[in-house]
């Protein structure tokens, strides 16, 4: 038994320093609270144990949302990427997505440096074994070395470390991600408090030495020439020119045969793995079995950094025995002679069922205790970071005795993510998809700054310089819209021949420039060219105005749906409502309401298995003003 001692006191303690923990700790410290962040391994701060990339559809939008709220992920990747690409450029503006390949070592070092240099923030290596809880309120933590830290609020971000177990073929051992020390006691402690935990599983593919890959047999995927970045604060002038390519190859019939021949040794099928894995990120053995009619699967070869030869074999996640992994790899074009550096593995870990949380990510059971990231049942660095930021902000607000901060489904992908988790729970590691958002034309990556910077400012996470730059951009957008409204495009020869060139009908009469812009294929640059006027200088301003005007019809449709949602969100449900006292509720609805404790009628409506009559009864019950509270 380790003897405990009273160590320092903080306002906020963050347990874990992965992508969730880093954001939580930075947000809290930047909001002026004395913050401690404790991690099992300092060498794992903001580490990427799986793919070396940030962004992509939905996820890239989350990164920009984090940036607009004053979080770190966008800035950190802008300093450490080795390739940048815009995806879905052939599609509409709602679904374009930015993705960066990261130098995962630099990414980690840069984030660690930022944390080290942030005032009010202490970074320390230790394993948290216990919480200090008094009268249902979390007061601090106790580490394995016996240190007892007190605080006003605590954020847990255990990732895949909680009772982590790595599985490679027949081999299993207790481990956190990337062979780090797992956290064993904290899970047991949480279960003792009555939290419902469950086992999830995820996996990572093998890494091979790039010097042993024959790239001639693969297809190159280079980065974009046009400057792009995640953070509002990054400059086009700083765009990285010397980018590193990724490469693509495919599995084949031989690979699939090797997998089928060795299924009895695959933990996924032998019953060794009990945790629930993600449908959207299946292992290669899972893909071959479930989609037996596909004769090949894509593989992406992604560099893990600029100064390493390690290559991540993307979309080739596996927990097959090492011997089989080698055979599988060597069957693939370009990898015939590839040297394995790290085998792929599956990892099982504890998650807290997220319906036990409020939208602030505070647990319903213990006041002042927040959880975020992969331990809430999600997967993905971006999903973790988004939650970490919200949990950190709320832990800070709670420590200050201020009301919580939440984002709606109509405001941010982060809002969609958290609402899905706390309202529906999740039966598999949860990944954000654009199809989970109802209003994705509103929740674009290009307008994340416009949507959320005012919140970041109000929270004290956006400095004055940046806020003024933001206001200037907003003003420039309004000015440009006004200019286009006042400007007339006349059917002069230049205009008519331009229209013919882009396949549009010529003008019969003069038309206002904002209407002219609504024609397909017409841009503000074209209007500047045709009128010989310089209307705006910032390409991001032009982009906003083009989207706002060209897609006004669809934006209005989504806005109307949002207005309806808002009215429902305005109807709050008392948090202590005793559902047993509500006459007429169906049993299933009564149980679900009591379990999830929806905060608003809109949230109640999103709970599966609740029918309209139950909603009507609940609505009436609340609105008559006489309700019973649970004891």
């Amino acid at each position: 038994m380790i003897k405990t001692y009273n160590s320092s006191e903080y306002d906020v303690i963050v347990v874990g320093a992965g992508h969730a923990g880093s954001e939580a700790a930075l947000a809290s410290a930047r909001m002026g609270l004395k913050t401690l962040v404790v991690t099992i391994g300092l060498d794992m701060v903001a580490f990427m144990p799986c793919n070396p990339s940030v962004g992509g559809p939905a996820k890239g939008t989350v990164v920009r949302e984090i940036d607009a709220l004053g979080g770190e992920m966008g800035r950190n990747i802008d300093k450490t990427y080795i390739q940048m690409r815009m995806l879905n450029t052939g599609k509409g503006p709602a679904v374009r997505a930015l993705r960066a390949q990261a130098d995962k070592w630099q990414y980690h070092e840069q984030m660690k440096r930022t944390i080290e240099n942030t005032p009010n923030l202490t970074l320390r290596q230790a394993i948290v074994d216990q919480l200090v809880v008094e009268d249902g309120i979390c007061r601090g933590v106790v580490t394995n070395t016996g240190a007892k830290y007190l605080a006003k609020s605590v954020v847990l971000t255990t990732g895949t470390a909680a009772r982590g177990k790595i599985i490679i073929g027949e081999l299993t051992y207790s481990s956190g991600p990337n062979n780090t020390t797992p956290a064993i006691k904290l899970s047991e402690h949480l279960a003792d408090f009555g939290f419902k935990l469950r086992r999830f599983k995820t996996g990572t593919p093998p890494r091979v030495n790039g010097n042993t890959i024959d790239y001639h047999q693969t297809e190159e995927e280079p980065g974009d020439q046009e400057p792009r970045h995640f953070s509002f604060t990054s400059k086009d002038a700083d765009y990285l020119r010397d980018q590193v390519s990724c490469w693509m190859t495919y599995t084949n019939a031989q690979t699939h045969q090797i997998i089928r021949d060795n299924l009895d040794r695959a933990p996924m099928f032998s019953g060794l793995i009990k945790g629930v894995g993600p449908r959207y990120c299946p292992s290669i053995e899972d893909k071959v079995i479930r989609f037996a009619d596909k004769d090949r699967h894509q593989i992406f070869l992604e560099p893990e950094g600029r100064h390493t030869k390690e290559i991540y074999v993307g979309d080739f996640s596996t927990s097959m025995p090492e011997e089989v992994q080698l055979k599988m790899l060597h069957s693939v074009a370009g990898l015939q002679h590839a040297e394995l550096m790290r085998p792929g593995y599956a990892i099982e870990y504890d998650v807290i069922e997220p319906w036990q949380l409020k939208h602030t990510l505070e647990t319903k059971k213990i006041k002042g205790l927040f959880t975020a990231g992969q331990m809430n049942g999600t997967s993905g660095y971006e999903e973790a970071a988004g939650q970490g930021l919200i949990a950190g902000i709320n832990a800070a607000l709670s420590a200050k005795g201020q009301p919580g901060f939440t984002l709606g489904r109509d405001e941010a992908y982060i809002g969609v993510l958290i609402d899905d988790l706390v309202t529906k729970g999740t039966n598999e590691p949860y990944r954000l998809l654009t199809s989970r958002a109802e209003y994705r034309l509103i929740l674009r990556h290009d307008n994340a700054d416009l949507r959320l910077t005012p919140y970041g400012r109000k929270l004290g996470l956006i400095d004055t310089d940046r806020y003024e730059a933001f206001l200037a951009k907003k003003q420039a957008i309004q000015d440009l819209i006004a200019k286009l409204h006042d400007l007339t495009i006349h059917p002069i020869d230049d205009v008519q021949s331009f229209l013919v060139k882009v396949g549009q009908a010529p003008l019969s009469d003069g038309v206002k420039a904002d209407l002219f812009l609504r024609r397909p294929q017409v841009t503000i640059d074209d209007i500047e060219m045709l009128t010989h006027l310089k209307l705006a200088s910032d390409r991001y301003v032009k982009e906003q105005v083009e989207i706002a005007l060209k897609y006004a019809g669809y934006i209005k449709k989504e806005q109307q749906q949002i207005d309806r949602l808002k009215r429902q969100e305005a109807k709050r449900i008392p948090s202590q409502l005793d559902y047993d006292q509500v006459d007429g509720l169906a049993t299933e609805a009564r149980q679900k309401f009591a379990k999830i404790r929806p905060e608003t009628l809109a949230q109640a409506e999103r709970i599966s298995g609740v029918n309209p009559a139950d909603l009507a009864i609940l609505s009436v019950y609340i609105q008559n003003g006489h309700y019973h509270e649970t004891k």
Partner: protein
Amino acid sequence: MAQVLTEFDTIAAISTPVGEGGISIVRLSGDAAVTIANALFKGADLTKVPSHTIHYGHLMVPDGRQVIDEVMVTVMRAPKTFTREDIIEINCHGGIVVTNRILQLLLQNGARMADPGEFTKRAFVHGRIDLTQAESTMDLIRAKTDQSRALAVNQLAGKLLAKIRRSRQKLLDTLANVEVNIDYPEYDADTVTASQMQATAKQVMTEISQLLATANEGKILRNGLATAIVGRPNVGKSSLLNYLTHSEQAIVTDVAGTTRDTLEASISVDGIPLELIDTAGIRKTADKVEKIGVARSEQALARADLILLLIDASQPLSAEDRELLAKTSQKKRIVVLNKTDLGAAITAESIQAMTASPVIAVSVLHEANLSALAAEIKTLFFQGIKNRHEDVLVSNQRQVSLLTKASDQLQDVITALDAGTPVDLAQIDFTGAWETLGEITGESAPDELITQLFSQFCLGK
């Protein structure tokens, strides 16, 4: 997502018993009640009139070209109303057809069909009804909502449900493909093209219109065959009308005291409900009916389920007769050869050679062979609805308005794609149509799409 009962959008319903009494009232309640009614009302600007006042005018289709009815509209603004919301009451001239038409127009222009007991529920929720009634009101909501849900499920049981599910599945397959193109841009799934999305939209629109066609049969069952008597002047239309309406079994709905120029009468011929349309002045001005020429008849044709085309057998076939024969050839019709007592210039056989429609030779004046006409009407009626037991039948207005909405949304998809809109934007209405159909079947969960995504495609990350 569950259908929202807690949302106070604007609801509409016919608040008088249908088909009874001289005046019917269609009631609207909610924020948009006044604006919706005003958009259809020709008369005073209802948005500007004082509360609790009544206004004379005409109810028009939104393009303002067709008068539906002459009406009195009561404007009552919140909070001193039954529901404590803005209420509009449209007093119209009764009759199932006109009243339903008005309701449909309101639904098409932003109102939602009220659920059973919903006006009362709103009155309660807004504190209009005494709180001591809380218990019973909640019981009422429970009972009524469940009952109507059960009813809806029963009505849908079987083929309608299966058909709508099949249509939804087609939309969902395409939708999942669009989503995978967006969320997994590097995954080598086929990219859904505008033309593929349009093809699916068109296919489902066709399926919806087939379902909506059965709605007409459902309507016939309830309201009777909309029947128009057409023919050139002096061919005996008024005589036939008089015979039908004055015959013993005839029941004529109240049309008295109105100045409308479009009237209808529900009558029963051998127990078959007929709704005679566009036969102005049935009683008062029967003598003028003869003066209604081809032009007027054309309007009637558009609305009719059944045409009784009268031809004077005593005179050679005129150009006008031929025109009417051609015009009505696509309609369900009976060609009635009248005035057989005056000598036959035309034989039934010669007409029959020109048409597949039944031809009946009668003399209205002498009431000769009119029973054969009645028998033929009966045959056609049962033909029209005999599919009822075998085929899908869309039976209620909620289904009709949701199907129409879904169809409109798919039309928006097609139009948008024609204009070069990217697939992932046109998808907004495409998803809308899928959700709207889901409201009919009661299964509109976003999770459904996610599940489809992962079962249809093999995705990495």
